[in-house]
């Protein structure tokens, strides 16, 4: 029953992306090209991050939380944000409304992230006879990541694509974007510094992703009011 388990974990990890694409108007407007381009941009960003990490980061002996190293990792994490900026602004899209653009970019981004980080461990590990909860938790993490990526793309599009924003909301937008961008550092601090176990960390990620999605949805609809 090991291929069965692999199949289960695979649909948990990659299913929501497909469901999101088919359920929302993205499929009607045929934004697949945008998503694929966003995925490729993610690959490029990942490569650049890898090179930077390899050059600047020192491998620590113990699994503890080293603030300096984590700060460095967070700075390198901002390359992610740069990649997202590139995907949102520089790629030539067909005439898609801004609403759908950020969704397509976020979707492609999250899908590439899942494939790169979770497909190989899933293929190697979930097919064995030995049963662990790890792969199911990993799938839940992929779901949280999807929501976070879409929120980040939304906030990003608000920051860079929308020109007339209510003045009061701008700091909130930047603050939320900052929080979402530094999520990886926060989770690694929780795991290493506070010693939280994997299920707890995944639960935290799911909760925060839902909260951030709600906040960014509210911000987005608030910014949309002047133009309608």
């Amino acid at each position: 029953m090991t291929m069965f388990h692999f199949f289960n974990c695979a649909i948990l990890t990659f299913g929501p992306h497909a469901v999101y694409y088919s359920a929302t108007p993205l499929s009607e407007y045929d934004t697949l090209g945008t998503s694929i381009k966003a995925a490729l941009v993610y690959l490029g960003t990942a490569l650049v991050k890898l090179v930077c990490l390899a050059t600047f980061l020192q491998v620590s002996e113990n699994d503890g939380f080293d603030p300096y190293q984590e700060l460095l990792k967070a700075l390198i994490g901002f390359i992610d944000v740069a990649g997202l900026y590139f995907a949102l602004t520089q790629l030539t899209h067909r005439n898609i409304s801004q609403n759908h653009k950020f969704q397509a970019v976020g979707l492609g981004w999250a899908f590439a992230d899942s494939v790169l980080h979770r497909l190989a461990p899933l293929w190697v590990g979930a097919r064995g006879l030995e049963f662990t909860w790890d792969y199911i938790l990993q799938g839940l993490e992929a779901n949280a990541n999807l929501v976070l990526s879409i929120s980040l793309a939304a906030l990003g599009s608000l920051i860079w694509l929308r020109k007339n924003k209510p003045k009061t909301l701008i700091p909130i937008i930047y603050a939320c974007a900052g929080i979402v961008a530094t999520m990886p550092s926060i989770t690694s601090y929780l795991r290493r510094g506070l010693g939280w176990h994997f299920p707890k960390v995944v639960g935290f990620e799911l909760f925060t992703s839902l909260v951030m999605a709600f906040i960014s949805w509210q911000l987005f609809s608030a910014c949309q009011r002047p133009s309608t």
Partner: protein
Amino acid sequence: MATSKKSGGLRDLLEPMYSVIALLFILVACVELCDAAAAVDVYRLIQYDMSGSPFGSRFAALNHHASSLRFPPGADLSRTVLIIPLRELNITFVREYITQKKPLGGLLFLLPEVLSFKHGGNKQVHEKEKMKKLLAELEQLLVNSNIPYPVYFAFENDDIDTVLTEIKKNDAMGQPATATTGGYKLVIPTAEPKKVASPTITNIQGWLSGLKADGDANQLPTIAIVASYDTFGAAPALSVGGDSNGSGIVALLEIARLFSLLYSNPKTRGRYNLLFGLTSGGPYNYNGTQKWLRSFDQRLRESIDYAICLNSIGSWDNELWIHVSKPPENAYIKQIFEGFSNVAEELDLKVGLKHKKINISNPRVAWEHEQFSRLRVTAATLSGLSVAPELFESTGGLFDGRQYVNETAIFRGVKLVAESLARHIYGHQGKDVQIFADESSLAVNPAYIRSWLDLLSQTPRVAPFLSKNDPFVMALKKELADHADEVNVQHENLEGIFTFYDSTSTRLNIYQVASVTFDLLLLLVLGSYLIVLFCFLVITTRGVDDLISLFRRPPSRKVKTA
């Protein structure tokens, strides 16, 4: 020309690609085997045929769920492996299962860690006698039955203990592990065991020449000292035979060393030749000894005054036995026995004489001296055992490890044999002369005995699994060559009525598996989650009408065509 060059270049480019792809495939295939909950070294029960009848465990591969002894009564065990630690072993239960041929997926016996020669070390064994008796009974039962499923032995360690407690907990809740209820799965992925092609037995003999006076045309008389070095047990990878017959080998080597010291100087060389024999094939009715004797020149055989066979002299307290097949009234036997008794008195130990007639028609040879007696050579066996062992009894079984051998017993045995032989050779019978006195240059060396005993207690020596050039056999030959003038090695085939099968030790993987119901449940949950997600997204982004319209489309098409 150009195209072939181009295709050649392309081929060159693709070649490293092929190796990379192949490497990737291998990696992908291999990695899935390394994630077990526990991996343990296990040793298989011996599998052999005797005169065509099969004995032992006939299978090696294992892929079943595990269960402990607390399984619910009436459960179907034909696809379950029973894990039985030795302290919970109920021999009547096992005997019932085997003799009544009840279906079982497999048996895994857990032996206490002290018995392991890799990790046990020299720790003391609690309740030695009880464990020895239990193991001997279990071994006799397993070795003499035909078992149609795999039987393995393993040593207890922390991993397997935790697994066993978990299994016991599950069994107590009335849920034996099957494909639908999860639990632990034991997997041993070996191939089917194959016959060992023409097993060889190797006899090693060492010759110490005596002092031949000038003008003496007759051949000097010879005294032979023999010990068999191979073992047989329920788990051939664990049959180290500390007492049977490691003690005999060690004693023989020490006696050879002492006499080689004496014989190195022509002034102290005796007028007897000494023939040392390390024979193989002991458990199989001393087959090796028989072949060795048959290979002798008639003159050599006739020149043997007598032979002393050493067998299990490592675990006795105060009494040693001399077993003979010629009647005790025989002059030669009397002489030998008196010689030994005199020395024994001085060393403060007892020696008894036991007579067992040979039955020529019975192929069973219980003692090594019987092979000599069948060829009319006077011989006796010195042993700590008082009763003749049955076939495959006292041949180095599961309990016969380092803990069951006593160095002091071997020390005293060596002294007894060496003194008695020396008195016979140098004609000091009845005189109170100590040749191998303690503190002298000819003292028996306890360190030598200890180091060889330690080595032997870590070397399993079942003859069919020892190749012709096995390093241990070579080591014995080299050691004997250090002490003797001339060493010969004789390779023979083990007699045809025995056939052995390989695959004696392997690695067991224990996996914790989830049941099929769990997987199905998970699939159900995930399916409903995705459907709910889908509906939620449709409702929030397109509106409820769109969702309803998704289900209404097929009927509307039918209306159109109609």
